[in-house]
């Protein structure tokens, strides 16, 4: 077994690290406080090829693999979890399915600009009554000649306000329940499609989480991705890949919190010695470092399986579960290592703590990941 990045993967990680440390880390606290979408740095990420990593060059992407995606995403998240979710949604939840299930004509129209970073994409599955119970879709798409007419509401959609293209799931045959769900690309400014509100959140505050409303929104049949009724399959397969992205984001959040803790444990003195020399703090750092390495390795394993074209549903869920739980635990302990200072915004460690929480919730809660893993184990 080899645990080593290729030259290209290492260069991609180094580039992402340098870019994130020089351009993203310095603004992370400010954009979090102001809940401001970082247009300028996201545009630069697009120019560097970070927004369409796994899409072939012919379709505007970078033509790299999932391992490259994971190592780059971890570096971005280490600096700022908001940038990381924007990157993850664009790569995993929009580009991946449009590439995989789209026709060449659809790829040219809906994938190329997004993979090249000229526009952003989002993934609209969640509804007021369809969170973990994602099958319970109430949004409908009624066929009318060469069009579909979409009506419904989508909730908590990451990048929902900023995206130019939304991959929307809707019932085309409600009688067939989840086998009647289909997927559509809806372009911004399509009449009947609007963003009704942007949420005020605990964490990942610089990323926009929006509610999308479809009021008799007319979309050409040519915008349907995959066959009628294949939407739910597309959504689940897409989320498998998305979970690898969120796992990488969670590892990055944990690393960011851990590194601040190590630095503080060296500098801060109590009882005459740096606090890291007190066993209780040293052990916390040891637990953080160990969990982070474990989370990173499972994430890379899931990515490696995906790159090899092998099944990875179970590993993606394991990676997402373990990395999210690690991020929350590490970020919680990181605040603890900082003591009272950790509770103060200025220390910035509380940002990792607030950002970590969402990784246990979105793209399948930790509880849903356990369901997926149990189902795979008992197969």
């Amino acid at each position: 077994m080899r645990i080593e990045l290729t030259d290209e993967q290492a260069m991609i990680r180094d580039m992402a690290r340098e870019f994130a440390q020089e351009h993203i880390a310095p603004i992370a606290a400010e954009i979090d406080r102001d809940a401001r979408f970082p247009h300028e740095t996201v545009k630069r990420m697009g120019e560097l090829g970070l927004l369409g990593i796994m899409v072939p060059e012919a379709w505007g992407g970078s033509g790299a693999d999932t391992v490259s995606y994971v190592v780059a995403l971890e570096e971005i998240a280490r600096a700022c979890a908001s940038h990381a979710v924007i990157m993850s949604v664009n790569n995993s939840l929009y580009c991946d399915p449009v590439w995989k299930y789209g026709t060449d004509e659809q790829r040219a129209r809906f994938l190329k600009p997004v993979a090249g970073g000229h526009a952003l994409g989002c993934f609209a599955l969640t509804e007021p009554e369809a969170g973990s119970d994602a099958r319970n879709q109430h949004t409908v798409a009624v066929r009318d000649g060469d069009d579909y007419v979409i009506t419904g509401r989508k909730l908590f959609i990451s990048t929902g306000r900023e995206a130019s293209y939304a991959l929307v799931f809707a019932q085309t045959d409600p009688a067939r329940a989840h086998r009647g769900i289909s997927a559509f690309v809806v372009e911004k400014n399509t009449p009947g499609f609007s963003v009704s509100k942007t949420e005020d959140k605990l964490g990942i505050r610089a990323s926009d989480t929006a509610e999308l409303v479809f009021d008799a929104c007319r979309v050409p049949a040519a915008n349907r991705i995959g066959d009628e009724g294949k939407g739910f399959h597309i959504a689940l397969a897409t989320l498998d890949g998305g979970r690898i992205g969120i796992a990488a984001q969670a590892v990055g959040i944990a690393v960011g919190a851990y590194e601040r803790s190590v630095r503080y444990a060296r500098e801060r003195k109590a009882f005459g010695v740096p606090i890291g020399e007190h066993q209780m703090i040293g052990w916390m750092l040891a637990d953080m470092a160990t969990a982070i390495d474990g989370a990173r390795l499972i994430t890379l394993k899931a990515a490696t399986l995906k790159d090899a074209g092998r099944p990875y549903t179970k590993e993606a869920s394991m990676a997402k579960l373990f990395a999210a739980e690690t991020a929350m635990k590490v970020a919680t302990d990181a605040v603890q290592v900082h003591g009272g200072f950790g509770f103060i915004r200025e220390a910035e460690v509380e940002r990792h703590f607030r950002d970590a929480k969402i990784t246990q919730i979105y793209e399948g809660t930790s509880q849903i990941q356990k369901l997926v893993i149990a189902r795979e184990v008992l197969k």
Partner: protein
Amino acid sequence: MKIVVAVKQVPDTATQVKISGADPKAIDTAGITWIVSPYDEFAIEEALRIKEKRGQGEVVAVSLGPDRVKEALRSALAMGCDRAIHLNDPAWANADTLATAQALAAVIKQEQPALVLCGRQAIDDDMGAVGAQLAEVLDWPCASWIMDEAVDADAKTVRVGRQVEGGLEVFDIPLPAVLSAQKGLNEPRYPTLKGIMGAKKKEIKDVKPGDLGLTPGAPQLMVKKLEALPARPPGRIIQGEVKDAVKELVRALREDAKAI
């Protein structure tokens, strides 16, 4: 217009340099992360900008050093250089700045570029000699520490601004010429993912002394020994009333430190 950029691979700026236990003339290279010397990145960036501005041309990166130097050349290719040349031979293992300049000059004579760019110095040994020596061996004009450049439309001359105390010294220099880059010349780009993925497909040609008609002899400049800096003596805090402490401070500065 063809441009050759001379680059050196050096330890990362965050490296804590230690003298090797086995060889007192060398540093301990275990665990070192190697990078392209930052001043050389300015040179690469400027070469790429000249090419992009003119809409045509070729940028060739050249480096002398052991196998690991391929990584630095790969970085140059990922940034956008078209191809690379690696001067890689045990005979160059102890090359001093003059031997390095002679080897580079031999390659440059073969390549016949209109312009050679390099960093003002490498950040490892800080010799800052290769650029000027290279120009001397080639018998080309040279401008060091440039902050600004403009190649004319016919690629016959280049106007450069050199950093001098309090301002820029501006020269028109006939091409071909050697220029060394100072910080502030530009902001080097990050390699894009496409650039990184494409670097693998670009050529890195291995060149031996024989290919250049050279037989490197013993270097004229030889390292006898490396010594670590002496440990800094601890500071001293003068206690007592301010009035007395100031008197003691002045006395200590005058008599002990002989600073005033």
